[in-house]
């Protein structure tokens, strides 16, 4: 049991200690805990997007600028991960451009998000239009 004298001492010191502690927290921002921002949720379709964009980039090597121009709009809308690399280009550019319709159709079949499915399907139709206009499909 505390003596009366000790109890008074604790009562006097305790507010001072608490006050000093609060002051140090306020005045020293370096020691403040970082703000708690939860990481952004991973897009389950991101791998589909990135693989599709890699195919598009690979298909455009050597193709007329109209295709690259169309694909810039597609890629911007798809929002791939930064730094996605093109797959190695194989065969004639015409064949690669025709194959892109299948690539986009397959990606639309694998995607889960309805908005992404719509985007990929419409991009496939845009690719088909350009091919048709040039007599390639």
């Amino acid at each position, binding site marked *: 049991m505390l003596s009366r004298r000790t109890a008074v001492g604790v009562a006097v010191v305790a507010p001072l200690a608490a006050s000093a502690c609060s002051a140090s927290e306020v005045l020293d921002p370096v020691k403040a805990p970082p703000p708690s921002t939860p990481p952004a949720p991973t897009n389950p379709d991101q791998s589909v997007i990135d693989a599709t964009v890699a195919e598009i980039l690979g298909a455009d090597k050597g193709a007329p600028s109209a295709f690259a121009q*169309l694909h810039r*709009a*597609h890629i911007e*809308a798809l929002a791939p991960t930064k730094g996605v690399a093109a797959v190695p280009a194989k065969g004639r550019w015409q064949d690669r451009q025709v194959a892109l*319709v299948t690539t986009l*159709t397959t990606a*639309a*079949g694998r995607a889960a998000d*309805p*908005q992404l*499915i*719509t*985007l990929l*399907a*419409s*991009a*496939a*139709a*845009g*690719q*088909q*239009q*350009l*091919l*048709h*206009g040039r007599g390639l*499909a």
Partner: protein
Amino acid sequence: MTTANSASTEAVQAALAVEHASIYVLGALGGRTSATSSPALARALTDAYDDHVNAREALAAHVVAAGIEPVAPSAVYDLPARIRSDAGIGAAALRLEKDTTATYLSLVPKATGSDRTLLIQLLCRAAARQLDLGAEPVAFPGT
């Protein structure tokens, strides 16, 4: 309760209903076009008509394969009114193809598996036909 599979089949059935209507309207538009005085338009309408018939057959086959009765065509459809020129006929046909493209695009996310693949293939065909009727290519047809 609607399951994923039945929703997918309903999307194909809706596309089939669109094809029934398109065939009817294109047949009527083609009947007002002269192959002699407007050979390019007549050819574009004939090609579009044939393409829609092929689409109808492909969609009906998918529905039958799912064990469901394909939706039947209506007895009559609304036709574009007061068209008296080749330009008007061409514009009506292009409007039809743009509507078809937009409808397919709206149905695609509702379908799954091979149904979705078929709808995208037919969407691509509809988008390409627009060019035959004077449209310019766009990045995102149907939107």
